[in-house]
């Protein structure tokens, strides 16, 4: 009898221990997936992973190609006193490439790693705005790297942004795959897929020794745009946009300093929750050497668009104004044209 009791107690203890060690899934109910849960999953945990990044591009001759690269990523929760997570994004190494070429690739990748991480793929920038501008649809259960995942689609409410399919790890909520689709044709435009995945303590142990957390260089963030230009050497040379892109909210206000010529650039970042519109204003920038039509009441906007991004720029009064956003984002056009009218003082 006593032996039986001891056996039952032992089984109960093991069972309770097993229950205690089973992690609570971050995404318990697929119907309750929210942008806030995805945002928490990406920013409040340790991750150490490898991933492929694919982009569909066109060159200057119109030739369409898929290009890709292999990356390693470490993510850590925000440091004490900070509000954003830490990250270290690197191009994969040791793959047998010519050392000189590999060094060149590493240098270019390191220079752009912040943009690639922060704006190069799907990312919840503001959960509340995302919830008002996009809808999440549960598409089914799948497996990613042998782990259960939920497939969801992200559809913009306004039709002015691209659509996404995410494979969310059930346990952590981390997006194991992010695929971007053209909102009109449904064609695949870009994709990031995780090939190796570690999280929690294991990722922390891996990252603690090697991670080179990104810190902004030549860039200072300010609480408001006015505070940013007041910190500039010549604040009067800057003009703040009078309007915000519809559906977007101001996210960050920064001042960049070019280490080569000392030029200051005001950078404002707007977001609709997921997509970003970046505005850069650089007094003293060299005038673009392109033949553009001009007249007494005609002004030129340089326009570059590829499959995933749009860049609009105009030059007036010795100041360069540059707006960047998604390829299908009509707000980039409206914002830039409004700004041009504001700057020249005409309608």
């Amino acid at each position, binding site marked *: 009898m006593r032996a039986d009791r001891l056996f039952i107690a032992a089984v109960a203890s093991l069972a309770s221990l097993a229950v205690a060690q089973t992690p609570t899934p971050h995404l318990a109910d697929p119907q309750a997936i929210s942008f806030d849960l995805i945002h928490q999953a990406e920013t409040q945990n340790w991750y150490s992973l490898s991933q*492929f*990044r*694919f*982009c*569909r*591009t066109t*060159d*200057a001759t119109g030739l369409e190609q*898929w*290009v*890709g*690269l*292999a990356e390693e990523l470490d993510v850590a929760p925000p440091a004490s006193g900070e509000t954003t997570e830490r990250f270290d994004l690197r*191009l994969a190494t040791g*793959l*047998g*490439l010519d050392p000189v*070429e590999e060094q060149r*690739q590493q240098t*270019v*990748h390191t220079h752009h790693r912040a*943009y690639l991480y922060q*704006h*190069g*793929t799907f990312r919840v920038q503001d959960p509340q705005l995302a919830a008002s501008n996009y809808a999440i*649809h549960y598409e089914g259960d799948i497996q990613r790297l042998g782990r259960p995942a939920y497939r969801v*689609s992200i*559809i913009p409410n306004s039709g002015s942004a691209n*659509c996404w399919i995410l494979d969310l790890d059930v346990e952590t909520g981390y997006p194991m*795959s992010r*695929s971007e*689709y053209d*909102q*009109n*044709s*449904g*064609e*695949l435009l*870009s994709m990031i897929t995780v090939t190796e995945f570690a999280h929690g303590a294991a990722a922390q142990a891996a990252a603690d020794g090697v991670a080179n957390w990104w810190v902004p260089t030549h860039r200072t963030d300010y609480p408001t745009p006015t505070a940013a230009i007041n910190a500039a050497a010549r604040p009067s040379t800057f003009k703040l946009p009078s309007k915000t892109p519809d559906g977007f909210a101001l996210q960050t206000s920064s001042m960049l300093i070019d280490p080569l010529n000392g030029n200051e650039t005001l950078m404002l970042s707007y977001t609709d929750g997921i997509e970003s519109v970046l505005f*850069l204003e650089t007094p003293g920038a060299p005038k673009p050497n392109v033949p*553009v039509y*001009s*007249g007494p*009441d*005609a*002004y*030129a*906007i*340089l*326009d*570059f668009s590829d*499959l*995933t*991004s749009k*860049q*609009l720029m105009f030059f007036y009064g010795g100041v360069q104004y540059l707006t960047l956003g998604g390829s299908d984002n009509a707000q980039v056009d409206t914002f830039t044209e409004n700004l*041009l009218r504001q700057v020249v*003082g*005409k*309608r």
Partner: protein
Amino acid sequence: MTRDDLVSRHAELLGKLEKPEIPAELSSRSFLDGIYERAARDMAEDLDSEVAESLSTRFEAPAELERQPVDPERFEPSPLRELESVEAPGLMWPRLRADLRSWTAARRRHRTQRRVASSLAAAALVFLAVWTFDGFREEDTVVDPEPRISIVRHRMTSPIAPGFSSGSIVREITGTAGTFAGTAGTFAGSAGVLAAPPSAPDFPANRVGGRRAR
């Protein structure tokens, strides 16, 4: 004796008198003209030389005045009608014409003054109407203080800011690295051009009408 009786008595006495003989020269036309000429000469001596000259100038009567039909019935009966018609002397025409001119000028002046007064009154009314009409007040008027501009798009074939396009960044990294067989896991190098598009789920066409992967 009443006044009437006295008049009748005088008429009776006068009727009994012998009718005096009228000098023949008085009935001649030249005698009467001589009187008129002497009167005109006396008056000319009292007037300025200019006026006198104009008065002495003979004017022909306007033809329209002579041709105007005269209706005798429109005139009041007068004892003068019984008199023999005597042609008005030529010297009267300058005065008539001067009177006509002054009368016409006066009438013209009067008409001009009335026209000016009417115009001023109309302008005042228009100004008052414009001033009091709300539709023309500044706060209600759509004013375009800034001239319109035209914006010309200049298409670029290469990125303006390559560092802000993930596609351009990846292309720059891949460079001439050759084929990247990332999905198969047998790539030479960490980046490159894919031989085939990556394997990805089709976009769920049931979510939005017409959005189907090709």
